[in-house]
């Protein structure tokens, strides 16, 4: 069974998924960060493929992508760095990135390398649903990769139903109409949206992402979904001096309040 399905089967709530940008802060940080996150209690990890023009990202992830590219990160290198990781890490791993670098790498080749590295799912926010269904669904299926779709507060109900129908891992609920980035709390409109989606009784589990940065926002999100995804706040936490493993441990503990 795919590790994503297994995770949601074994754990129904308080799932913590953490996003990190591959090649940030240092070119060879990625494998280390993934291992440290898994050790510190993350349930799932999204490995961000850096892109020069990340249109759905706010300043923190933009800067980390720039840094990663300057460090020399490429898809080829990333796959090389990941190859031995599965000997030590058992939690689900997801690749997240923009379409162009993946297209230039070749979609089939990308999926093949993902499966060789033990990747479980893929998020490509700018790959349209209809194109996925027409051209790429079978490629992802062939390599046993779950393709994860996003929904936002503006997504129409019938489209959410369609996305629920074609998904079989989880649904990525973008918490607000926004790019990625840290925000203070949730507005009542956001809570209404969380409730509305929760009441739809979708067949797929949901994780809420974008703007989650603290124990409080994490807990609120977990009230309305199976868990939450943290990106910018984690990337920010990697800034500065100090033992990285310790920083990661502290970060996860702060969110989970263990």
């Amino acid at each position, binding site marked *: 069974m795919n590790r994503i399905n297994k995770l949601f089967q074994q754990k129904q709530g308080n799932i913590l998924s953490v996003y990190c940008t591959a090649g940030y802060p240092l070119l060879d940080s990625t494998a280390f960060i993934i291992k440290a996150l898994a050790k510190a209690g993350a349930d799932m990890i999204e490995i961000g493929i850096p892109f020069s023009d990340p249109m759905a*990202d706010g300043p923190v992830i933009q800067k980390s992508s720039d840094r990663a590219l300057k460090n020399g990160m490429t898809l080829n290198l990333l796959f090389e760095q990941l190859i031995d990781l599965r000997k030590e890490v058992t939690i689900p791993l997801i690749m997240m990135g923009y379409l*162009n670098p993946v297209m230039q790498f070749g979609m089939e080749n990308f999926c093949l390398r993902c499966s060789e590295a033990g990747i479980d799912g893929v998020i490509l926010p700018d790959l349209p649903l*209809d194109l996925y269904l027409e051209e790429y669904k079978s490629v992802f299926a062939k390599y046993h990769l779950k393709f994860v779709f996003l929904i936002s507060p503006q997504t129409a109900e019938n489209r959410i139903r369609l996305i629920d129908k074609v998904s079989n891992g989880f649904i990525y609920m973008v918490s607000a*109409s*926004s790019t990625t980035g840290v925000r203070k709390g949730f507005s009542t409109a956001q809570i209404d949206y969380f409730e509305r989606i929760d009441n739809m009784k979708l067949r797929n589990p949901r994780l809420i992402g974008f703007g989650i940065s603290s124990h409080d926002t994490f807990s609120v999100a977990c009230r309305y979904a199976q868990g939450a995804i943290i990106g910018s706040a984690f990337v920010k936490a990697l800034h500065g001096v100090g033992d990285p493993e310790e920083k990661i441990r502290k970060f996860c503990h702060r969110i989970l309040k263990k």
Partner: protein
Amino acid sequence: MNYEVNKKGFYGEYGGAFIPEMLYPNVRELQHHYLTILKDNDFQQEFRKLLKDYVGRPTPLYYAKRLSDYYKTQVYLKREDLTHTGAHKINNTIGQIIIARRLGKTRIIAETGAGQHGVATATVCALMGLKCVVYMGKLDVERQAPNVLRMKMLGAEVVPVYSGNMTLKDATNEAIRDWINNPVDTHYIIGSVVGPHPYPDLVTRLQSIISEEIRWQLKEQTGNENPDYIIACVGGGSNAAGAFYHYLDNEDVKLIAVEAGGKGIDSGESAATMVTGRPGILHGCRSMLMQTDDGQIIEPYSLSAGLDYPGIGPIHSYLYKIGRAVFENATDEEALTAAYRLTRLEGIIPALESAHALAFLDKYTFKPEDVVIINLSGRGDKDMATYIKYMEEIKD
């Protein structure tokens, strides 16, 4: 041959709408409504009336006698430089602002490179009383200072963009991010034939007024509506798309698009997408794109801020692929020389972007009887600082 987009917004393999889900409702809304609105009588009446009374259309088709003598051929200039605000960009913004109002939008955002599209957007926002935010790369804010001041005087907020190369590509990213964050009240007026479907088709149709006028104007002046050549500069490709549009089906009319060669194609510093790029996805559409082997976008270079874009409209990638249009390029220096030549021979100071189209006259020998139309996409006021800087270096 079919030159229209298909239902999904593709010209052959180019185009489409590669957008994150957060943009889907906005883009879908536009896809649903744009053709109905464009074909609506009330829209057409308002659009046409504003083009006439406010923009100053039709713009003249001017037979450039001294330029023709110099190049020993028949050169006509389509004078988009004489439009209100000084470039073809306003044809698009007038159309899109009416559409935005119809869709109930109260806030307008735009990206700009040279500042011409920003000015054209700020202008129509003032005209319609809508809030306007223009994203502009920090570098362009500096090199196009007069246009920044114009936008501000028009009441627009100009947001300098510090990411990437701090030019047009980055301003476009930032405008897209704004739209993601403001999906309900905001309309994004893209300034060229780029972006997710329906923008390339929408902007092409709005700019097609250029070739619509050329047809009857040339017929009036020469008895024949068909020129031998139409030449236009291409950044994203909106003035070229507009100048080509009504001639696409007539293969006797040769279409020539001139990209920015910067410091030379082989210098690594150019914005000549067709020669240095390959298919890729940026800003929501699939088209030719300047990129590394890893699919990272390469920062383009051109002295002219309006051509400094790593992509090109999908319609052009398609015209290139099927061979319907020829894609050439002109360097900074060639464009400067051509700008001075037009100025000294005809008393017209062109925009540096348009000067790239003029530069093609130096690169090709036309027959004496050839009718050659140059789309003079804009005027050079905004480029005065650049022109003056090079005054000493331009010899003839």
